């Protein structure tokens, strides 16, 4: 076993690399946030189409959701990355790898969110729509004032779970060399082979982010359900 004898301790190295680490962390947060926000918006739209659309309109969207949910996230990332890369190159557009990463995670997120939305909306009794119609409301209004508020309470906890899945999934972007926190970890280990220490530290950072999201979600839940009562 090679004994690496250096004068610089583990924590000193961490301090020296702090810019790298902070860059990686901000990339991770940026990519995750982008994917979650865009993915949720897209997922809500797709979910609405699948729940209320007519038979032919919803077919391609159902197929999209079924395929994406049947794929591992890693495969989705590889496919989007390689396919987009090829297609864009042949058109002559250069897209930053991070944007591609956001797109891949966004697609994954949208498929999950659409299922949540569909499930929650289908649980609301049809009579609620009838009641709205009887009052003279049109469907978009019924959606806004009656259906979505009720669905929101049911969607929130699993949505928080999806958000943490996206943060965890962002680590997979390192496997297509997109610069985020996981990749920084690998680089640190390459320079100074203390795998256990570095990966545990990086793992702790992700754990903290996700736990913060979890706690934030619980606090939000309390606020919403109180209002709804």
């Amino acid at each position, binding site marked *: 076993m090679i004994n690496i004898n250096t004068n610089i301790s583990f924590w000193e190295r961490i301090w020296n690399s702090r810019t790298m680490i902070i860059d990686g962390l901000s990339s991770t947060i940026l990519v995750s946030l982008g994917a979650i926000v865009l993915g949720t918006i897209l997922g809500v739209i797709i979910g609405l189409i699948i729940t209320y659309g007519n038979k032919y309109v919803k077919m391609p969207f159902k197929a999209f959701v*079924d*395929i994406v949910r*049947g*794929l*591992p*996230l*890693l*495969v989705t990332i*590889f*496919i989007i990355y*390689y*396919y987009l890369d*090829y*297609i864009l190159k*042949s*058109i002559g557009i250069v897209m930053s790898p991070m944007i591609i990463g956001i797109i891949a995670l966004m697609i994954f997120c949208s498929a999950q969110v659409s299922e949540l939305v569909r499930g929650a909306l289908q649980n609301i009794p049809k009579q609620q729509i009838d009641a709205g119609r009887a009052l003279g409301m049109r469907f978009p209004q019924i959606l806004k004032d009656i259906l979505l508020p009720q669905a929101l309470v049911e969607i929130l906890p699993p949505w928080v779970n999806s958000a*943490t899945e996206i*943060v*965890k*999934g*962002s*680590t*997979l972007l*390192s*496997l297509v060399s997109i610069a985020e926190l*996981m990749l920084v*970890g690998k680089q640190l*280990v390459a320079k100074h082979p*203390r*795998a*256990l*220490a570095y*990966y*545990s530290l*990086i*793992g702790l950072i*992700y*754990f903290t982010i*996700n*736990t913060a999201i*979890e706690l934030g979600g619980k606090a939000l839940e309390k606020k919403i359900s109180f209002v709804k009562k």
Partner: protein
Amino acid sequence: MNYTFNFNVVFRNIDVFLKGLGLGLYLAVVSLTFAIIIGLIIALGAVSNHPTMKKAARIYVTVFRNTPLLILVYIIYFGLPDLGLILSKPVAFILTLSLYGAAYMTEVFRAGLESIPKGIIEAGYAIGLSKRMVMLDIRLPIMFRSVLPSMGNYLISLFKDTSLAAAIALPEITYITKRLNVESFRTFEVWIAAAFLYVVTSFLMAKGLGLLEQKWEIK
């Protein structure tokens, strides 16, 4: 854009693809088995009356559910050797996936145990059964029957998670597809093949589980 599809690469390597599928299924099934065993033990701690065991269970679940699987794989495969523990790739991956899955199964088992009507448990005590007998003869059998569908669905989820084995060069579907991509430059074709395998396998597993559920319902 000019691209002519040529699926020869896929057809020439069908055996490699299928071996990768087999490995993926193997990793998933073995990991689920260990996840169930470990998860059950932790769940028993979670529903016990010992505050320390309850806290330890909660900590375990939180740590393994909020940390990315990829990092856990790296910690176990690359990190443990720092402590002198060197594991082979399959063992390291199965260990990781088992510990990760155990956190999920703990929650499933805990919810299953807590959802049993208290009256049924009281009836067990009323005829003089001890705590251990009530757990073994009444609570666990009822719980297992109710969580069977969740366990089946989680197997499908774990199967998709085996794609991460590619990160440590285990030759399951994702890894060999990536390798074929590099070797043949037939990007579209090989990844369509990989996607097809995953989606169809997941679909068949779901259908199979549905049929099993129906069979048991009637009984």
